[in-house]
């Protein structure tokens, strides 16, 4: 199925999203990657508020290139999500509803997604110049000292993504790989 989604999320929408659905996202999303996640978890542990209200939000795992003069942002494709696996379950528990990245997630993340009703989207890794076209505004809202790893508020229009893992825990990476892995196994003695 194809859906157009507004971010932040309407909680009801999450249940309808299934692994393999393609979506375009409009609205406000936040960026955070390794260093920003580490800082956010420290804030939580110290009982301090996060730089933005995480309830119903989407975090995009990205560290963009600097913008040329007159441009909104530089190249801005997804980074590998698994590095955020140590931190994501806590954020999901606090109300994070969507993550955009690329690559595999841990069982702990998927369990949290099922328990608290969240979804994991994939964007095309290495297509940062193309994806940048769907980012219409950006503002650094926290940790500017981290450079590319600062938390940014992005306004997106027709941001393209695919549902990789849905709130039931179904995973497009597994389904897709199994489908084509079985298509022809001649002389394939190593897998």
């Amino acid at each position: 199925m194809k859906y157009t989604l507004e971010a932040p999320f309407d909680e009801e929408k999450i249940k309808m999203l299934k692994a393999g659905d393609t979506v375009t996202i409009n609205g406000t999303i936040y960026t955070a990657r390794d260093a920003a996640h580490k800082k956010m978890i420290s804030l939580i542990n110290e009982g301090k508020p996060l730089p933005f209200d995480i309830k119903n939000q989407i975090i995009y795992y990205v560290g963009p290139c600097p913008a040329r003069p007159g441009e909104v942002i530089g190249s801005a494709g997804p980074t590998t999500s698994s590095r955020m696996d140590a931190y994501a379950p806590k954020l999901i528990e606090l109300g994070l509803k969507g993550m955009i990245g690329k690559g595999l997630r841990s069982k702990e993340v998927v369990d949290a997604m099922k328990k608290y009703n969240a979804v994991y989207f994939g964007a095309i890794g290495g297509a940062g110049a193309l994806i940048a076209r769907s980012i219409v505004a950006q503002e650094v809202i926290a940790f500017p000292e981290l450079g590319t790893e600062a938390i940014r508020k992005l306004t997106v229009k027709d941001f393209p993504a695919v549902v990789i893992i849905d709130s039931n825990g179904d995973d497009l990476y597994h389904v897709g790989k199994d489908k084509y892995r079985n298509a022809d196994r001649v002389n394939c003695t190593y897998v």
Partner: protein
Amino acid sequence: MRTVNINEIIEAVERLCQESNYNLNDDIKNGLKKGVQTEMSENGKEILEQIIENAEIARKERMAICQDTGMAVVFLEIGQDVHITGGSLTDAINEGVRRGYDKGYLRKSVVNDPVFERINTKDNTPAVIHYNIVDGDKIKITVAPKGFGSENMSGLKMLTPSEGIEGVKRFIIETVDKAGPNPCPPIIVGVGIGGTMEKAALLAKKALLRPIDERNSEPRIRELELELLESINRLGIGPAGLGGRVTALGVNVEVFPTHIAGLPVAVNISCHVTRHSEAVI
């Protein structure tokens, strides 16, 4: 003896950092186009087309193809009849990287210390530099920015000689299989076999500099490259890891003599944005 001033080197490195990050090389572009024809998955075809479109946008707008503009890996082949003047060669390379990444609106992705502070150096230095002294009076500079989505999926194993060619193949294919969608497939696989531990790793990195449509001149290695490519493309990972038959665009293998007791194998995985640009001074 021919003299080369470091300013020439700084300028070349600055330019190569930018060109390599904006322009996808033709061999990979052709590999992607071929992939659109051979991919069985409709989703996969569409992703390959978007990857090609992305490269076109990057080239036209002088924008980084991928936001991970990498750690700058620089290979130097310095002719033994060249005398470098005007300052330190290493400083010149780093200055070129600093200028290239700053003026080119490229991301700065290097941290000062790997374990403790991890503070961004804000200018993408230091570069990883490999020096090699060769015959002649020229300097060849290759800049190969390496992204870490794929670098993190690489691996090295010290096999025993009894594991032989089957062990070599198994380790390479398992490494790719485990990496799955993480290294931004379709990937390029650089393999180094032989030497010592660090020699194998360096061979694997150098293998990524060879165009993917150029096979190793040794017939048995050429066959191995073709067989590995075929096996990898049966893994089912596909473009962006969503399932498909175009998981790798190329497998390049380099070999070197080794010790009677050893069989080192290094697998350096690289994404569809495998970058390298060269200049000869």
